[in-house]
């Protein structure tokens, strides 16, 4: 496969604990355990794209080194079948296996502690039964096997399992460290960006570094392709415009326009604006979420009005998820919003 096709998310996945962006405390604790060459069972939780999977993979690599990792680490994620049968068979079998011997060479370079690691990625999508089956396995084979559960919602993991793990919370990346990482990738790929492009990427990705990196790669792919065909696009400079298109963000002017329309109840004007927006192909859910951001940050709208609008937004979101007509639903949203604002 040609190098260009490797997703940058994989290419720039940190291979050492030190490379993991932000997450100070967690990494600190893990580094200590690395020195002691011992691990508890672990539960990583936090929003997507904050480095949970990267951290555990990097940790394993530092513990075992690339060669030994193959026989010592089992990684399962939600796309693998993980019903109760798999827990009973594959996971149990792997947990029971005797620890493979490390070569002297590996021993010299890596701690190579005498246990295996089972990583259960996206563990919150495992069924309750499957998690229940894990309970005893975790205890029985704790001498030779450590579990690391990775999930977004810690509440979906049953209590008996959480109480067997030490929990690590991953926080949303702060802007600076995320920006630094993106900038590192950008310069490594020899890419130039207009001012503000990286900021926009982060904003669109909403704290999810993985998403931001994927967007950056899409943008660069577009520019490179364009240059190869002798088009008049600068191959190495990513423009604000292309990022806006790739991320599917609705331009602020459209959202601001909507907000202004809700200042008075003029159904006909609102209808025309909504028709235009829908015809331009903007997705209603995207409009809804950006509209929400604008409303919340707007200081001119009173608290009472905001409360009522929040209720309205929740209902509208429900309708859109059920597949109601986008145009009618948006129209309803704006008209009702205007009514609420006229009341206060």
């Amino acid at each position, binding site marked *: 496969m040609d190098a260009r096709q490797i997703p940058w998310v994989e290419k720039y996945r940190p291979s050492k604990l030190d490379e993991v962006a932000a997450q100070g405390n967690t990494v600190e604790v893990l580094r200590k355990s690395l020195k002691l060459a011992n691990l508890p069972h672990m539960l990583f939780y936090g929003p997507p794209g904050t480095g949970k999977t990267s951290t555990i993979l990097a940790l394993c690599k530092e513990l075992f080194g690339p060669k030994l990792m193959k026989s010592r680490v089992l990684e399962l994620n939600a796309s693998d079948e993980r019903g109760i049968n798999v827990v009973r068979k594959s996971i149990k079998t792997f947990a029971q296996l005797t620890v493979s011997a490390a070569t002297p060479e590996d021993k010299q370079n890596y701690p190579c502690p005498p246990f295996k690691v089972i990583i259960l990625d996206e563990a919150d999508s495992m069924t309750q039964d499957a998690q229940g089956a894990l309970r005893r396995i975790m205890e029985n084979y704790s001498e030779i096997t450590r579990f690391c559960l990775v999930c977004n919602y810690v509440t979906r993991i049953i209590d008996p399992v959480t109480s067997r793990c030490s929990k690590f919370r991953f926080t949303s990346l702060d802007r600076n460290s995320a920006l630094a990482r993106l900038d590192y990738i950008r310069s490594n790929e020899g890419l130039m960006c207009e001012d503000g492009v990286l900021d926009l990427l982060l904003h669109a990705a909403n704290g999810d570094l993985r*998403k931001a990196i994927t967007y950056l790669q899409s943008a660069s*792919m577009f520019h490179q*392709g*364009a240059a*190869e065909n002798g088009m008049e696009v600068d191959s190495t400079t990513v423009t604000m415009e292309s990022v806006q298109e790739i991320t*599917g963000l609705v331009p602020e002017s459209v959202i601001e326009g909507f907000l202004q329309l809700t200042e008075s109840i003029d159904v006909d004007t609102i209808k025309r604006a909504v028709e235009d927006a829908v*015809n331009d192909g903007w*997705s209603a859910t995207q409009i809804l979420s950006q509209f929400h951001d604008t409303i919340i940050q707007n200081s001119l709208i009173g608290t009472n009005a905001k409360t009522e609008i929040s209720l309205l937004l929740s209902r509208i979101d429900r309708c859109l998820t*059920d597949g109601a007509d986008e145009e*009618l639903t948006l129209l309803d949203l704006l008209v009702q919003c205007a009514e609420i604002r006229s009341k206060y």
Partner: protein
Amino acid sequence: MLWVDKYAPKTLKDLDLNDNLTDRLKSLAYSEDLPHLLVYGPSGAGKKTRVSAVLHALYGNSARNVKLESRTFAATASRKVEFTLIVGPHHFELTPSDLGPNNDRIIIQELIKELAQSNQVTKSAHRFRVVVINEADTLSRDAQAALRRTMEKYTTSLRLVLVAQSTSNIIEPIKSRTLQIRVPAPDYESITRVLNRVAQEERISPVPLPEELLAKIFAQSGRNLRRALLSLEAAVSVLPGDQQIVVSNSTTVPPADWREVITEIAQMIIKVQSASQLLAIRGKYYDLIAHCIPPRIIIKTLLTELLTRVSSSKKPSIVTAAALYDHRIQIGNKSIFHLEAFTAKVMNVLEH
């Protein structure tokens, strides 16, 4: 041949709307790699035209060489499902509504696996083949979740092109794995440009077409190019003349007959608000449904008609009612109930 098909652009070079987008597609199609695509936009904006142009750019003329294939597929041990799909030498094209909501997951998985595991036999410029999924927003959640893994696993031999009206019903993981391409509906200038070009080819005079006629066609089309072309063809087809067809500002553009029925319904609602009137309107609704006009289109068109006829203080409640009953039609089963309820609600609003 309808003008819509006759003058549809065949290759990327022929595309004449949305130049920015065309450049973007060219740059993707001519580079050696193509990401998974999610093409979205309102109907009549040219999504499929663009997809088929991209396929043409990828595989040349053989991409046009397609046939309809009917397959049977064992959904469970005892139950067999039959479905049809369009098969080309390098691509599949399928529409989930043909597959049925309960089977789409299994069928998509099987098809994609079959395609991914066999390599290209015929020679082509690319190692991968393309699966086009139309109406991707109607895919069930299960099917979308199943795609998620397949998209990553078979990237070497397979590219997906999802075509959807809106991205609202597409799950986040798929959106983040695809390059999203928005196809906006053409504006007035673009539509008039196309209409004028077609008029010239069809020897209609005068070219450019009269301003008022264009305005009439545009108003009826709702920025839908396909509908605009059909309107023009319909308007011209009733005019006499063999060699040279002459149009003028007064040329009538016949509105679709179902629209007229809906206009009538709107007038009836505004004239009298009573139970007997509701009964009369009900007959019309049944008529429309029997002629295969989707109930949700009825409600939307009816709203537009009503809004032009009622006082502005009543408008907000009517809009809310329309949105509510449209939602109910979507999740409910028997749409006539909701159409009637909407009518009753509007009558109620008008009376007070």
